[in-house]
């Protein structure tokens, strides 16, 4: 099962996206998805795409897309296996993830996501399986929770969908022992949807539950 099918099976919402091997395919993809879009590189060698400017957000038109595409191609040529054109989602960036601990098993993380996640370290943890009550507490525990609630006229995050995402990661961690680590980072969340726009799954041998 491809990762996208696997994640959908657990109820994790993924973005509308298309792969592109050429500039023309990227332009066609953007046209059918509708601007604004996000352009991302596909690479087996690069771990953190943002660090090498391999992600361009909020591309509003064909001109900006060409520019972004050409820039990445020129800079990262040898590491690029292709491109993905994704619908641009508006909302807060959160992270839901899992790390399999050798003593306690799957540890589920929830926190403020995006590129600053390891700098801000605004994260809460629970050992899987987490209950709905745990998931709710995890959300409320982080310092940025008022931001998710729409503080100062901001976007209000759909809490029920975030709880659903946390429970999904807990469930898939309990059921798939080959997954060592997983990041849904970021999940872009607004009032209506919570979309895992970037996902990393690391599989390995640890067979503990």
């Amino acid at each position, binding site marked *: 099962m491809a990762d996208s099918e696997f994640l959908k099976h657990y109820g994790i919402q993924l973005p509308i996206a298309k792969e592109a091997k050429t500039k023309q395919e990227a332009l066609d993809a953007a046209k059918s998805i509708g601007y604004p879009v996000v352009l991302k590189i596909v690479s087996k060698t690069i*771990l953190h795409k943002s660090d090498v400017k391999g992600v361009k957000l909020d591309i509003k038109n064909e001109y900006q897309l060409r520019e972004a595409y050409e820039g990445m191609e020129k800079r990262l040529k040898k590491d690029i296996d292709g491109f993905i054109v994704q619908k641009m989602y508006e909302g807060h960036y959160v*992270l839901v*993830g*899992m*790390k399999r*601990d050798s*003593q*306690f*098993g799957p*540890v589920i*993380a929830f*926190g403020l996501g995006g590129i600053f*996640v*390891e700098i801000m*370290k605004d*994260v*809460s*943890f*629970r*050992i899987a399986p987490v209950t709905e009550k*745990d998931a709710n507490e995890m959300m409320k525990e982080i310092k940025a929770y008022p931001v998710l609630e729409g503080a100062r006229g901001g976007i209000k995050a759909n809490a029920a969908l975030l709880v659903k995402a946390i429970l999904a990661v807990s469930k898939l961690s309990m059921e798939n022992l080959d997954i060592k*680590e*997983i*990041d849904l*980072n970021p999940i872009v969340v607004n009032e209506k949807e919570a979309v895992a726009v970037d996902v*990393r799954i*690391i599989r390995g041998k640890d067979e503990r*539950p």
Partner: protein
Amino acid sequence: MKDLNLLFNPKSIAVIGASRDEKSVGHGILVNLLKGGMFATRHNEPFKGNVYPINPNADVILGLKCHKSIIEIKDKIDMAVIAVKAQLVPSVLKECARKQVKAVIVISSGFAEFSDEGKQLQKEITDIAKKEGIILLGPNCLGLVNTYASLNASFAPAMPPKGEIGFISQSGALADSIIDWALWKNYGFSKLVSYGNAAGIGITQLVEHMSNDKETKAIALYAESIPDGRKFMAAAKKSKKPIVVLKAGRAEKGMNAAKSHTGNLAGSYDVYKAAFRQSNVHITDNVDELFEAAQVMAYQPRLKGNSIAIVTNGGGCGVITADSCAEHGMNLAVLDEKTLSALDKSGKMHPAYSRSNPLDIVGDALPDRYDAALNAVLQQKDVHGLIMIQTLQTMTDPVENARVILNARKKFPDKPIIAVFMGGKFTRMGKLFLESNKVPVYAYPAKAVLAMKALLHKR
């Protein structure tokens, strides 16, 4: 689950590696069994069952006939305490098995904590114990104390006072010092056990045992690592007794190279904290807090809701306590009309009393004013617990004030009351009176607030 009763309540004990050398561990253990402790205290009690020293090179030790091997003993032996060189432990353990000894404490070090050869030895004794169905505590441990069985099967300096805290410690040396400290601070223990390398039983089985132990009212844990984390969580969740933990080894020694953000974010102590929290284990940051929390949990009822009251005869101390409450996430109840009217009608209040929480009943408060205040405040439904503060003024009577607290405890048995008697010398008698009646009393407000917080986690 293996029944650990024989480990804590043996009728007869062999000390293998008993020695005439007063500075040796084998000598210390024998003295502890025979007298209760090497350092004399009124809490020491000699073990009431039979004790058999084993040493191939001695005939008599401390007036007891010495045997060359455990096999030579005719009587039944329930437990063996082993303090011989690590290399000799496997063969000694096999002899114990032949003698049908069911519980063994291996004090000796030089096992997995020491070398690869030690690791191999540890595996050997683990296998022997498993095959023969022997309960194995250690190796590399202090041993155990059961104050209710007059049993000091350890090389700890003395027996701690009898009490209600069951202490389970990975470290032996820490447990030693805790005993000295407990003697000084008057902390009581039901059982004290150090499990060292946990080759046989470890923290999880000990928690399960203490959960069912009738003398233990609260369990205090010191752990550096919990390898069977998920089993521990299950045992802790099921425990009938409240559990307090001090987890050491919290500093990250360079994160392992995780590939994901989550992997990098989830430090080892974060994982432990999550696990403790989910299994209702109260986390403390230092040794003081560990035992203060354990004691308050053993002594006082659960705090049923997060809203408490402060009654004080000093405004400043009330403010300090309120600050501390805010810092630790403890909420102060709003005193309602009924409570204020009860205070007014009592006829005991100073005209300038604060009429709000913290309730400042003013410096010249005599015991009868405290009594009126405590009764009025504690009858309010959403006041789930109370911190009573006494500062020492010319007319203050610490012992009578202590009595007022005890009366309130009787009248409101479901609501915890914690005392802060600020000061030292002249408040001492009041403090002793409270302590001997199981009311925690501190010299500083912050400690009282932390203790109250611990009661939120009591089950």
